[in-house]
């Protein structure tokens, strides 16, 4: 795939709205749901930073809190059941959680956009493509008439829709799944956001189409220099597109590492077991490594570390107290033994900022105590 033409770039720059590169930082985010059965701490103390141009993977099983983390950043948590009860979301020097409803509307879709899982449900079947792709440009850039039409066609070209002047009049059902998801991408890019959140964008696509779409996202990121949060449960996708990965379990980030590091020397026993349990198309093995038990119910989480009941390395303290996040140091040692060097307690808040090769895990194995 080729990069966009130079004259297109200049049109874009003329009409740019939100595209100042900005650092995103989430601090101790807590989003709870108040239900009849009790309080569900869907997101419970999540902290991470996203540098301009970086791609961060957010992986975890269903119910681990990855999607709610993203919805919280956009302040789209379904109310009144769900409430952001604590934390900060800094985009540049603004805390999004302190903005008024109206101010937030200037951020949503403009500085942070989102691509959802299923284009069949995220596109409106009764409006044509032009109307839906143009809505953001109309609202945020004040475009209308032929200016808006040109803008829509430019956006469609960005996402490699052939014959955009014809396709703009199509309705979603006239397009294939892969093309629909590219339309969703065009909508997300329409005001050139600095952060794009992609929530399982390829789950509903076939594998060969998935490969095309991931390639497109990577190309677009290079052309338009946004940073990306990639929510997925698929480690294969993580390996392909992410610079860094945060692994979530039961509402908390349990491990954060550069992608290669995570695969070559996972620290948290959950991440370790999960990576080992993947059936690998490149290998023939007799049996797969399994993780015993089930993911916990968020209604009654066990005391201490929620993974402890399934953990092969669980100790007494694990069932009593949730571990803080420890810096485990980047090791090239892949021996698989328990790594205990360089462990200095870092409070569960934000770890040393910056994109540096930090590898953290919320696990008592790394508290530095002699064992």
């Amino acid at each position: 795939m080729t990069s966009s033409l130079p004259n297109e770039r200049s049109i874009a720059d003329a009409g740019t709205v939100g595209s100042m590169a900005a650092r995103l930082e989430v601090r101790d985010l807590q989003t709870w749901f108040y239900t009849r059965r009790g309080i569900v701490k869907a997101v419970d103390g999540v902290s991470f930073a996203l540098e301009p141009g970086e791609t961060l993977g957010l992986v975890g099983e269903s119910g681990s809190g990855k999607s709610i983390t993203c919805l919280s950043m956009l302040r789209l948590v379904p109310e009144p059941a769900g409430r952001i009860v604590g934390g900060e979301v800094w985009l540049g020097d603004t805390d999004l959680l302190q903005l008024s409803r109206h101010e937030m509307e200037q951020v949503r879709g403009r500085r942070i956009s989102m691509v959802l899982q299923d284009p069949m449900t995220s596109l409106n079947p009764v409006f044509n493509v032009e109307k839906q792709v143009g809505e953001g440009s109309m609202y945020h850039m004040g475009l209308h008439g032929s200016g808006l039409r040109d803008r829509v066609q430019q956006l469609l070209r960005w996402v490699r829709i052939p014959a955009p002047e014809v396709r703009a009049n199509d309705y979603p059902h006239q397009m294939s799944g892969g093309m629909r998801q590219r339309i969703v991408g065009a909508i997300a890019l329409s005001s050139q956001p600095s952060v794009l959140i992609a929530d399982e964008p390829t789950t509903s696509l076939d594998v060969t189409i998935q490969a095309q779409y991931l390639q497109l996202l990577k190309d677009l990121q290079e052309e338009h220099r946004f940073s990306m949060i990639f929510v997925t449960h698929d480690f294969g996708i993580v390996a392909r597109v992410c610079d860094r990965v945060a692994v979530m379990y039961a509402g908390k980030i349990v491990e954060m590492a550069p992608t290669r590091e995570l695969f070559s020397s996972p620290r948290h026993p959950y991440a370790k077991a999960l990576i080992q349990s993947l059936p690998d198309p490149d290998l023939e093995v007799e049996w797969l490594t399994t993780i015993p038990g089930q993911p916990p119910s968020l209604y009654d989480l066990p005391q201490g570390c929620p993974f402890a009941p399934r953990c092969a390395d669980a100790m007494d303290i694990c069932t009593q107290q949730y571990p803080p996040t420890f810096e485990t140091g980047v090791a090239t040692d892949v021996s698989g033994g328990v790594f205990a060097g360089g462990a200095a307690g870092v409070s569960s808040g934000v770890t040393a900022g910056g994109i540096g090769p930090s590898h953290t895990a919320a696990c008592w194995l790394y508290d530095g105590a002699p064992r």
Partner: protein
Amino acid sequence: MMTAVTTEPVLLDVRHVRKYFPVNKGVLLRKPVGWIKAVDDVAFTIAPGQTFGLVGESGCGKSTLAKLILLLEPLTEGDIMFDERSVTGLRGDALKNYRASVGAVFQDPFSSLSPRMRVKEIVGDPLAVTTDTPRSQIEARVSEVLEQVGLNPSTASNYPHEFSGGQRQRIAIARALSASPRLVILDEPVSALDASIRAQIINLLKSLQQELGVSYLLIAHDLGTVRFLSDVVGVMYLGQLVEKSTSREVFTNPLHPYTRALLSAALPVRPDVQREEVVISGEVPSPLDPPSGCRFYARCPAAMAICENVQPLLAEAEDGHEVACHLYPTSSPAGANATP
């Protein structure tokens, strides 16, 4: 586990099966205006105790094929032999016996189990419907299979909603096995499950096969699962088998350009494994009026002149490795000229 491709006894023999769905137009006088060729001349065999893995993208006909074998849809053409007897004309007891011999596990354990039935009813149902097993023995058999799939038989009186996704899939597996089938069709058995549960279920399927000697037809898009469970793998594209060989051959020595693209797109599990990157352009063409030559022609990076008009035949290109592609002379019908 066998790895050789059939000179062995055959349990299921799918013989040049076709399934066309009519496309009708008009409100009162509905006229057929075309056919969707969902399955178009597919042939393969499954030996006793063997797993045949079927891979391909959505719409390629995998699930239609499963429905044909389960007799949920009539064949348009061809035949399916089970234990050397055709299953298409079965009636009465013979049909019941066949239904008892073939079990099925579907993708979503939330929609495939009736919420109004207790586990023992769900699991005992195939026995009650397809066999004359007395009620007292059904309960004993239910306890037995529940234990085999790793569930506590004391939960037999519970309802499906009381179980997690992984446990529900175990119930679905128990149901498929209760009438002691010889073939089980697994249609995406783990893709709806959480990652940390998948390996448990995949291992369970494998150990059950070793214990019971049952054959599997595995339909899955996760190639890791297919490689792990399958002895023989068939790759489907737009209603046709384009490649077929042992699991190891297909994964280490893929011959068809589509198989190569599929393997490349399957994404590395580990970032340190470098893979040949084949990103194919375009999308799967409509099975309504598929292209006349090779169906992969328009997307194929290695397409030649002959591919546009002459349909390649599935033929043995290497020892025990069949492929339908003009890159291999065995696929081109006599007289056709395969020049690049």
